[in-house]
């Protein structure tokens, strides 16, 4: 199972999906587009604590994190 983690006021909300299920993949891609379209940044976790920003949905990604748009404080 892969998962998309969306930061929010509760800490995060997680959406798990089966990467072999076409319908679940379609929903995950829709969610990716909706979130990034709303200003969220998407990042993949790589080895040893390194992250990679992604602008397109990666159906092979095991874990994608979304955080809200950054602003100066």
């Amino acid at each position: 199972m892969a998962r998309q983690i969306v930061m929010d006021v509760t800490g995060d909300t997680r959406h798990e999906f089966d990467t072999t299920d076409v319908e679940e993949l379609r929903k995950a891609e829709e969610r990716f587009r909706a979130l990034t379209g709303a200003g969220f940044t998407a990042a993949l976790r790589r080895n040893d604590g390194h992250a990679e920003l992604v602008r397109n949905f990666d159906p092979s990604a095991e874990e994608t994190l979304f955080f809200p748009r950054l602003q100066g404080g």
Partner: protein
Amino acid sequence: MDDPELQALCAMVGALIPCVVIIGLVWISEKQSRDRARRLLEAWLSPAQLEQFRTSGYFDVIGSDSGRIYRLRQGRQMNVDELDNRSKPLALWCVLPEGRLPVCDIMLAQKIALETDEKGTLAIAHKGSR
């Protein structure tokens, strides 16, 4: 229950109970949010950052463009120190995600942003002086 003072006291206690319950539920909910955010942050830190965070309450990240070191302290704002080559604070930066997120979520967003797009992140950030 003919005593008016006792009746007033009972009414006051009756009114306070829901408030206490609500405050308790909010506190529990916020603690769960903080705990969830901390687990997420710890899962995304490098082993060295995780050790530093657990022992010191902060961790260092390396800027993706300049190689400069930033120290992320626990806090919602003005919690990013740019360090000099002797690990002394050189400048203070403030950049955070929109919305009211738990502190550890904010720190994770700052870490990813500085490690992957330092220039873009600092272009948004406000700089303070030390």
